[in-house]
């Protein structure tokens, strides 16, 4: 037996990885050529027509981090309830500046455990940015200017439950006494036929009101009133485990990760799904701690399913402590409408108005507490089945395009309470989730929407710099600072509650005697900043807005104008 030192083994392993990568690349050149908009010469080969377990997601993230060390930093934000690392990949061109000083865009997926494809969408975005960085000018410039923070699954415990065990609740897996009887998680659904699905139960009954559809006998159709049917439906797979006369009333978990955020929070008797208090859940605590330390994040996307919606806040009428300002509304709607174009079938909707009220939701926290621009895409839309809003029959789709792969055929079993029943119906992989062949298409469109969002975060530039001699040997230095993108450096909430400092424009060199913002160039009106004129403060630079500044300076001939904005990035210009 040969015993190698761990370090030697590592060197050998990484060497073989380089060789394999090299060989793969050579083979790729021989066999493939690039389709427009998709990377072909891959360092990390990933199939986007299947779903990944937590281990699979971790593996892809680690491969990206090792293949693209100049772009990717992978770190754990904290542990889930069961102790899994909650990964976040920071993606930016590190050689073009500190990623945490660039405007950041946050993506998370899978907060609701049955809404798993958000992870693939987030992961695709990470992968796409890395693999396209060398191949595409837009992407490489984007990663020079911006930073993506991507957390593919923020609910890893329940994701693995979905992958390996059965159908989890919306929540993570912290025990909860949903029926308030002193026992925790004692009466959940039971996977009676051990197929990792919780299906429907039907049985033949004298009082039946349903018959199999003669056209597709898998489908149960209701008989007309007054007629007799063969079957009755008796709920989802399960038994009354705790003998209290109720079936499946206290399963694992049973709260809601998206009612746990520290803004407009309400307790569970107002907002079902709420836990003890905001950030009761370790997964959300980890994200809060990370985000609070990354105030450069300007925008966010939290992937959910389903229904084909691009959701914006507020989630309660009026927005609670802070409603959306008119200026912010305009920008959000503009971005959302572009999203509607980019992702066919998806509609821009406002949560409280077009869907329902949500207290303590993640979106309101991002906007209200963190001052960010945020969307939540509800992935998958029945429209995608036949690209037709009028034709959305899942049975037909399953038959014609999936060859009945998403249907569990009715199967007889003996139920301890109900006697002989049949278990069957659509599997957990259809209805809310993309089938494999549509997953990559929608992942790309949603990734492109995130990229568009990030692109529109502020970019600050300095222009019209001039140095002019004035009386008394003094100099007047003037400059213009422009935000060349659509999003402001500060949302209205951010300005009102001073979440972030203002945009600082510093003049270095010489002794600054006075500093002012030029409010009207033609009439020479200015607003002086008495305190600390060497570091001028601009409360906000709205999309495409310019601000002219002027300093009176004594001495020196070389001046550095330094712009620093938490959410707008940094830039420096030297004037002589």
């Amino acid at each position, binding site marked *: 037996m040969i015993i190698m030192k761990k370090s030697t083994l590592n060197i050998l392993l990484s060497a073989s990885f380089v060789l394999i990568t090299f060989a793969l690349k050579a083979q790729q050149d021989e066999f493939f050529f690039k389709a427009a908009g998709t990377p072909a010469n891959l360092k990390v080969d990933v199939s986007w027509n299947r779903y990944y377990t937590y281990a699979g997601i971790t593996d892809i993230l680690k491969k990206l981090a090792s293949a693209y060390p100049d772009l990717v930093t992978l770190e754990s934000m904290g542990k889930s309830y069961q102790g899994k690392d909650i990964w976040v990949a920071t993606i930016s061109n590190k050689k073009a500046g500190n990623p945490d000083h660039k405007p950041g865009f946050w993506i998370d997926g899978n907060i609701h455990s049955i809404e798993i494809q958000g992870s693939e969408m987030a992961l695709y975005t990470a992968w796409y940015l890395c693999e396209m960085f060398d191949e595409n000018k837009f992407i490489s410039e984007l990663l020079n200017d911006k930073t993506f923070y991507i957390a593919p699954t923020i609910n890893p415990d329940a994701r693995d439950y979905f992958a390996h065990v059965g159908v989890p609740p919306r929540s993570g897996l912290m025990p909860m006494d949903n029926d308030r009887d002193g026992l925790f998680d004692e009466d959940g659904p039971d996977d009676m036929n051990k197929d990792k699905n919780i299906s429907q139960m039907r049985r033949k009954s004298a009082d039946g009101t349903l018959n199999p559809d003669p056209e597709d006998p898998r489908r149960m159709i209701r008989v007309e009133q007054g007629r007799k049917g063969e079957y009755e439906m008796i709920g989802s797979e399960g038994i009354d485990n705790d003998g209290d006369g109720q079936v499946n009333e206290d399963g694992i978990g049973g709260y809601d990760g998206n009612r746990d955020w520290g803004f407009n929070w309400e307790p569970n008797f107002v907002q079902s799904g709420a836990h003890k*208090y905001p950030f009761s859940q370790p997964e959300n605590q980890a994200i809060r701690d990370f985000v609070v330390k990354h105030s450069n994040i300007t925008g966010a996307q939290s992937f959910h399913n389903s229904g084909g919606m691009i959701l914006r806040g507020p989630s309660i009428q009026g927005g609670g402590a802070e409603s959306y300002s008119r200026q912010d509304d305009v920008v959000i709607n503009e971005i959302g409408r572009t999203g509607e174009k980019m992702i066919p079938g998806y509609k821009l909707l406002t949560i*409280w108005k077009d869907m329902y*009220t949500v207290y303590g939701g993640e979106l309101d926290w991002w906007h209200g507490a963190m001052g960010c621009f945020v969307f939540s895409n509800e992935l998958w839309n029945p429209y995608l089945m036949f690209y037709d809003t009028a034709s959305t029959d899942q049975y037909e789709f399953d038959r014609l395009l999936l060859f009945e792969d998403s249907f569990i055929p009715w199967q007889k079993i003996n139920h301890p309470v109900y006697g002989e029943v049949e278990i069957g119906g659509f599997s957990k992989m259809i209805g809310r989730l993309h089938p494999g062949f549509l997953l990559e298409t929608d992942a790309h469109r949603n990734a492109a929407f995130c990229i568009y969002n990030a692109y529109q975060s502020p970019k600050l530039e300095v222009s019209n710099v001039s140095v002019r001699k004035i009386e008394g040997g003094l100099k007047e230095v003037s400059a213009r600072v422009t935000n060349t993108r659509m999003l402001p450096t500060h949302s209205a909430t951010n300005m009102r509650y001073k979440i972030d400092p203002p945009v600082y424009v510093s003049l270095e060199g010489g002794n600054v005697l006075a500093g002012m913002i030029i409010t009207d160039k033609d009439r020479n009106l200015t607003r002086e900043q008495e305190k600390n004129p060497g570091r001028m403060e601009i409360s906000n630079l709205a999309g495409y807005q310019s601000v002219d500044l002027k300093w009176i300076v004594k001495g020196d001939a070389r001046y550095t104008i330094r712009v620093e904005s938490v959410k707008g990035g940094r830039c420096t210009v030297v004037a002589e």
Partner: protein
Amino acid sequence: MKSTKSRSILSVIVLILPVFLNAQVQYSNYKTLIQRIDAMAKQYPDLCKASAIGKTEGGKDIMVLTIGTGERDNKPGIALAACTDGSYILGRELALGFAGSLLRDASSPEIKTLLEKVTFYIFPDVNPDATEQYFQNIRYERSTNARPVDEDRDFSTDEDPFEDINGDGVITLLRVSDSSGAYTESSEDKRIMVPADLSKGEKGTYSIYTEGIDNDKDGKFNEDGPGGISFNRNMTYNYEEFGANAGLHPVSEPESKAVMDFLFGHYNIYATLSFGPQDNLTQASRGGGDRGAQGQAQQAASQPGPGAGQTGRMGERRISSVMRSDETVIRLVGEKYREITGVKGSPQTKSDPGNFADWSYFHYGRYSFSTPAWWYPVERDKNAEAAFLKFAEENKLGDVFVPWTVIEHPDFPGKKTEVGGIKPFLMINPPTEKIEELVASNYKFITVVAAMHPELELIDVETENKGEKIYRLTLKVHNKGLFATCTEAGQNNIFTRLMRLSIETDKGLTILSGQKVQRIPRLEGNKTAEYSWLLMGKGNVTVTAGAVNTGFASSTIVLK
């Protein structure tokens, strides 16, 4: 046997003396607090358990004393929380004094019975970072923990604290002679500064600031000192987002999180009593407002869409005033408080958003009582500070006022500037001679109210022989306590327990009709709920009713 007993009595006496004598002398600092807690736990290991449930932001232990007998977490519990506002330091003494008295009397028939039925969870100080300011070199009333916070949102932290300009160890006020100032001398007591009332023809001649320097030169004085977040503004109910000292979000602080986790983890707790600024024992409780969705309807409301109807319905589930049947109990408890402690008048109370007492009722769903426990009389429409000076004089409280003294102040060159004012803490905490009496009366009050706890019994248990070995079993579950088994406000709260009624039968018996396990709805004081089963066969039937917050009642019936 005999010798063991006498030895233990002896050691009790030896240990008791320092602890209880000490208690009445002065306010306890953190070190003394911990010593007193440890002493009680050591002295009464069978009755009293002391646990540190977390660390404050400043690294102090957050302590809880559990006092009771038997299976403590399996019977109705009362939580007592002191120093919800750190400037109300009296709470420490009342809480420790209560614990000490309870332990001292634990073998008396009355308290022995009480401890068999009820467990007490005592938090002598939920916010020691704040409270400890009383014992520091610079004394000022402080509600906040040690977390550095940029209170004035100027992006530098803790840069403008108080300064003890006259070096007397306490922070009072600055008054600056100013012909356009907003303040003038009060007509009730010239030492007191009041806003000039233009409608009465008054013109101000002073500007008033807190004692200190405007370190950050922003025109505001001492607006960003050390700390912090206030425990009593960090709860979820009526929380003020971006409010002063409110925290990044509700329950953002280690102190509030530790206390919340303990309380939510103890489903048996049915009532809380807090010593702090809120009072619902001498005056009717209020909801403390509601930041209501409807009132805020702004532009987003202009075009309601298909989801809009849902808002109102969800908002309606909020509770923002005390519910009727809970009011009955709260009023009864208030009457007992006034009767036992003999207090008169009502204290000035602050309704802090995000406070503990309101949270405990509205969001925790438990009976919540709160009192400052001490105050001085203020006649209607009279100045409270002037009234305090009068009270201090009448009761010979001594040196309560720092006389206005001229000083040099760097922020007011060339202007006459004086330091002076009422010393901190004295208006909200009694002189130490009062503590003993307050401990005794509040102890009496708490034990009397605790005896009103919810308690179940099974009454009118009857079996009717229907022939053919068929029996009808009928009984009533009776709440013989005065408190309801759960507040009305808490009945839909997932963190309150529902009572279960279960029936266990011998193998020879089958249940023909009636549920094996079922839920019992909320029972108000002295109310019953009736249940029946149809059984066939012979043998024993055991019926058990209850939940940890009500206690359990059980009865075995023999069918033969």
